[in-house]
């Protein structure tokens, strides 16, 4: 594939690996948090960690929207579909995320709820147009990247007078998650030396919003693309900043990210959404100013306003270490549930569901590197 294979070139990868190995000082650690699940996925899918020197470790961050969604929001979505008999539309990743009482959207669908998997917000609008007698709710989720399409859908619905369309809004904001991770970092929290910053999010918000990471917390940032060579080059840029005792926000992903970001998309987001005073994140707790709801002018399209639901407090799975894994404090293999009983076929926590989740990536791509006992590989029958 042209324009993609170039970023997956084996020869360049080997040369970059040699440069990193030569420049990394053997006497120190390079603990680099990749913020996004997209990075985590690339690191595992292409075996990037395997190409790094042993003192350079990737720590997996919270940038997987499915993973940070608290169980209460899935419970809420199931209640929307069951208590109000709406058609609930959502991206495929969310279908298997565990809810309270071992439920999930997939199980609710099997029990008769009208839940549909869609690929884009345009699909939701089409379903609403084709089924005027049904109330159609879009379960909107994601970081800044997926927010503009939701905004466009909201504006389209308003323009067309689609009264049976509404949005259950779960869009969250990257900088507040970074702020929380860094303010709890240290001996009791995660220990990190540098951050591979979000790439697609940054195409929207630009590189400027990360300045506080370098200025307040003294941690260097490199905004990193999602292809494996992007990740490796960004790791090299962080190694150089650390070696030279620089602490800056650098941009590796210059082919898509500017300092300002996409102003048109920013204006759209500002028009359609408002910032929630606080929002719960799995693993990080209730964070102030960390998520979006529909702006007052569009409140009539807000499914939370239109369809009040009653839900019991969420019941987290005992022993699930997703919260600590999302903060980078624990690795997936340190969770007692990892591999038995928690696997991608039977996920107990959200990090085992999405291919961007750290646990799913460990399980699917990396577990052969670990000794078998510590992995609790289920007994093989037959």
């Amino acid at each position: 594939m042209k324009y993609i294979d170039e970023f997956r070139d084996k020869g360049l990868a080997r040369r970059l690996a040699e440069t990193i190995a030569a420049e990394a000082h053997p006497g120190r650690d390079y603990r680099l948090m990749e913020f996004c699940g997209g990075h985590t996925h690339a690191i595992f899918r292409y075996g990037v960690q395997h190409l790094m020197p042993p003192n350079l470790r990737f720590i997996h961050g919270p940038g997987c929207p499915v993973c940070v969604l608290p169980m209460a929001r899935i419970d809420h979505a199931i209640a929307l579909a069951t208590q109000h008999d709406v058609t609930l539309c959502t991206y495929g990743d969310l279908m298997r995320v565990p809810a309270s009482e071992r439920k999930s959207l997939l199980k609710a669908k099997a029990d008769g709820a009208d839940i549909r998997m869609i690929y884009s917000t345009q699909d939701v609008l089409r379903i609403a147009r084709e089924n005027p007698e049904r109330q159609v709710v879009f379960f909107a989720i994601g970081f800044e990247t997926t927010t503009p399409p939701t905004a466009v859908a909201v504006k389209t619905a308003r323009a067309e007078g689609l009264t049976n369309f509404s949005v259950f809004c779960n869009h969250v904001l990257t900088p507040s998650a970074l702020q929380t991770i860094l303010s709890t970092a240290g001996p009791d929290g995660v220990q990190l030396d540098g951050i591979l910053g979000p790439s697609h999010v940054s195409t929207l918000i630009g590189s400027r919003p990360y300045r506080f990471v370098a200025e307040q917390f003294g941690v260097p940032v490199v905004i990193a693309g999602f292809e494996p060579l992007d990740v490796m080059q960004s790791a090299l840029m962080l190694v150089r900043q650390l070696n030279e005792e620089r602490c800056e926000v650098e941009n590796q992903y210059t082919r898509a990210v500017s300092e300002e970001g996409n102003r048109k998309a920013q204006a759209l987001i500002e028009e359609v959404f408002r910032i929630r005073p606080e929002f719960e994140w799995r693993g990080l707790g209730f964070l102030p100013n960390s998520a979006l709801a529909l702006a007052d002018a569009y409140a009539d399209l807000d499914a939370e306003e239109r369809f009040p639901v009653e839900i019991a407090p969420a019941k987290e799975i005992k022993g699930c270490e997703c919260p600590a894994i999302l903060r980078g404090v624990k690795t997936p293999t340190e969770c007692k549930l990892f591999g038995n009983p928690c696997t991608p076929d039977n996920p107990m926590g959200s990090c085992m569901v999405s291919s961007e989740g750290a646990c799913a990536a460990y399980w699917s791509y990396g577990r052969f590197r670990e000794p078998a006992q510590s992995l609790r590989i289920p007994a093989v029958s037959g």
Partner: protein
Amino acid sequence: MTSDRRFPVRLDLRKGAVDMSHGSGGRAMAQLIGELFQRYLDHELLTLGNDQALFTPPPGRLVMSTDGHVISPLFFPGGDIGSLSVHGTINDVAMSGARPLYLAAGFILEEGFPLGDLARIVESMAQAANAAGVPVVTGDTKVVERGKGDGVFITTTGIGVVPEGILISGDRAEPGDVILVSGSMGDHGVAILSKRENLGFETEIRSDSAALHELVAAMIAAVPDIHCLRDPTRGGLATTLNELAHQSGVGMQIREDAIPVRPEVAAACELLGLDPLYVANEGKLIAICPPDQAVRLLDAMQAHPLGMESAIIGEVVEDPHRFVQMETGFGGSRIVDWLAGEQLPRIC
């Protein structure tokens, strides 16, 4: 077709639709069978009109296989549910090394399904069966109320006879054996997906749906000691290799660079976040054979029109965990795990 005096008015294949009487066992069902199924699937054992087909099997070991088809959409680039239901079962029979002999077909029709579409499907089934030389010799039709089915579901069953001296089974892979595939991976799944709502690609990707028994016959003629054969349908290459590794109690080591994937399929998968190794095929097979036979087998496969793009993709290794591992095109390595969940529902 001679006119039947029981049915003065012919079935309306242009505007007519299936109704409940077509599954009643009465006159309307007899007319549907006569004017549609027997007309296209014209074989003496079928047109005789019995509820079973009577034949004498040739000497040797018989194999039998059955496969239900629920694909959506019913018509797709490179095939339809009719041809797929013939190819799918022929391939399941052929993966034992057998020569397929006969097929049986069961139809579940939904009330309101257009008779014209049904005729297209049955005609396509007949063409596929004729081309393969494996006739449909008995069948069954049921009708369910509107909303209780999705147009048409077809179950086909096949029997075949295995040549003497051939023992092909998923538990026979041994460390050192070589793994081959007969062509590019993921074509069928991406063709189906691209036809589903709202995923129009500019390049038309065609399903690879095909009957593989003649390719298999050429392969066992060249290398009688093939250890395993399997067609990587649902779950794709990755899942099928895991099944074989599990059944044989071995590990597998494959090379990403060696696995054939069409550029348009790779691009579609990239766009949709799919991995072509997990996407279904309907006209490809995986073969595992002793190392000293691998080149001979590869030559035989490449000499057949359905195996021209065959490739050696890896080896069987010892591994108590029965993992399938892959050297990535990037130079790293990783596990290729079973498919988790459902990547694409209703693919065959």
